[in-house]
Each structure stands twice: as structure tokens, then as C-alpha cells.
């Protein structure tokens, strides 16, 4: 099992049995076992992290769903800011999502979570402040150098 995702997952079946899923592997969404799922749980791999534990109850006839969403900065840093995870269920043409974020936040019933935007801004602002401070420190160090 790879450790690229922050979560591992578990389905609670209608008969009470548990099925562990590796969400990074092709075929985790095997239709037969999904059809029998009554709860979909995602558990942080690092239990000391701030990632929240989430269990979603799946109504009869609904399909458990999962996705992750990397939030990327194109400019000025060109890095992944964080990855959010969403777990939920799909029925009658509608998806019902519960989102998990690295700061421990949870947001439900949306596909455009506000917390993702706030967190992206907060992380970018901090990176910008750190970059500016580093530039100023380098400039100050240059000015302090004694003339030869």
C-alpha cells in the first residue's frame, strides 16, 4: 500500500462485515461490494496528524464515492499547496460529499468547499511572507558585510 494519500478507507457492509480499501489502487470501486456498503469510513494513516476521521452512512441503494483534490499554485511558487479528500454517496443523480482538510476542518454538502479556498489563501500568504522575509534578511546580510 502506497502512502501517497493521507487516508486509508473501510466499507461497512450490510451484513456488518468490514472491507478495507486501498484508494490508490485501480479497482477499489468494485461495484458489487460498493452496492452492499452501508457506511464509508476514511481513517488518517498518520493518527498524530490533524486529518479528521470521517464516517459517512450510506443509504440503501446509494453508491459510496470518493475523490481527492490537489490544490496547486501555478504562480508564484509552482507547488502543490495541499490535497483535500471527499467521501460520500451518490443516489438519484446527486452526489453528497463530506470534505476533509489537513487543518482538521470538515465541510459538507458542496463540491466547491469554502475551506479549500481559505486554506489555499492562508498557505500562499504565509509562503509569500516567508519569501519576503528571506529576501529582506539576505539584503540586510549583504549590507552588513564589511567592505574589503
Amino acid at each position, binding site marked *: 500500500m*502506497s502512502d*501517497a*494519500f493521507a487516508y486509508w478507507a473501510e466499507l461497512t457492509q450490510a451484513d456488518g462485515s468490514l472491507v478495507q480499501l486501498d*484508494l*490508490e*489502487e*485501480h*479497482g*477499489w*470501486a468494485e461495484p458489487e461490494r460498493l452496492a452492499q456498503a452501508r457506511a464509508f469510513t476514511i481513517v488518517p494513516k498518520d493518527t498524530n496528524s490533524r486529518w479528521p476521521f470521517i464516517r459517512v452512512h450510506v443509504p440503501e441503494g446509494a453508491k459510496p*464515492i*470518493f*475523490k*481527492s*483534490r*490537489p*490544490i*496547486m*499554485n*501555478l*504562480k*508564484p*511558487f*509552482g*507547488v502543490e*499547496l495541499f490535497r483535500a479528500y471527499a467521501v460520500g454517496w451518490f443516489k438519484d443523480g446527486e452526489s453528497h460529499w463530506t470534505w476533509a482538510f489537513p487543518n482538521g476542518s470538515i465541510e459538507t454538502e458542496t463540491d*466547491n468547499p469554502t475551506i*479549500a*479556498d481559505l486554506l*489555499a*489563501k492562508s498557505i*500562499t500568504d504565509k509562503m*509569500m511572507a516567508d519569501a519576503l522575509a528571506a529576501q529582506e534578511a539576505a539584503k540586510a546580510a549583504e549590507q552588513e558585510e564589511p567592505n574589503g
Partner: protein
Amino acid sequence: MVASLSLRVYTGTNAATESAAVTGIDFISADNATNSSGNRTSNPVTVGTNSFSKHLRLKIDTAPANAVTNFKFWTDGTGQSNVALRAKLSQGTGGATPGTGGTTPSATALSGDADAYTYTSGAKGTWDSASYSTQNHVTKEMQLQLQPNASATPGNWTQETLNYSYDET
């Protein structure tokens, strides 16, 4: 496997020449994929002219377990005075690299474009809504162009925040 996607710049005729993976882009008076201070110094954009349009796609370097989709783009919503940033999303066709339907980068003002700053966290632009699952496939193209007008203050462009996201299933 968890998908691995990289940002690529497309240059040359019909933007068919794919760059290696890049982590940054320069808005300059030349058609290249370089991202460096030297590149910006050597190819400055004169006020009252446009940068060459920058043609971008995301490339799937490692295939996802199922698919990647719902590619969105947004900015912080505000830019430097007298310096427009224009965007044209969802251009051409995605699929096998380097994709098709790209247009040749140039310093001519984009047409059929939009103010990139109208794409914000609350109103994200759709870069591509198609779904991809194959290694080495690319998304549709996003074009960006810097347009400093004649009243723009010469010097470095204020760094603006540009973000994108996608969904992996």
C-alpha cells in the same frame, strides 16, 4: 497509483512542441518555456505591447487509479494597475500528447479571451471538464497573456497568485 500530473508549456507552430515539466512560467516577449530571471531580463515586455501568449496543458505522468477530471483555474482577483492578465480556457482538445487544436503563441492580443482576474475562488474558471485516465495524455489548453498598457509602470510585474485544481478518483 496516485496520479502525477505536471504542467507543460507548448511552443512553436500550433503550440505543438511540448516542454519538460515546469514549475513556473515567464510572461516575456519570446516564445519559450524557460522560467528564470535571466529569461525575463533577456526578453522583457515593453509597456504598451503584449507578452507572447503562454500555452499550458497538464500532462498525466502517472495514471490515476480511475480518472482525473474537473480542472479549474483561478486567481486572487486583483492585478497590478495598468497590467491586464488575459486568459482563454478550455482550448483545443485533450488526449494523446501534445493534444490537438492548439494555436501558435504570439504577441498579438488574444481574442475570445477573458480578464483572468474574473476567475476567482468563488467563480473558478473551467480549464477542462473532460476526464482522463491514460498516462501521457494531456488536458485541453489554457492560454495566458500579460498585457501592460502604455501607462504601466516599468519594472518587475507584481507577482499575482494563480491557482488550479483537479479531482482524482
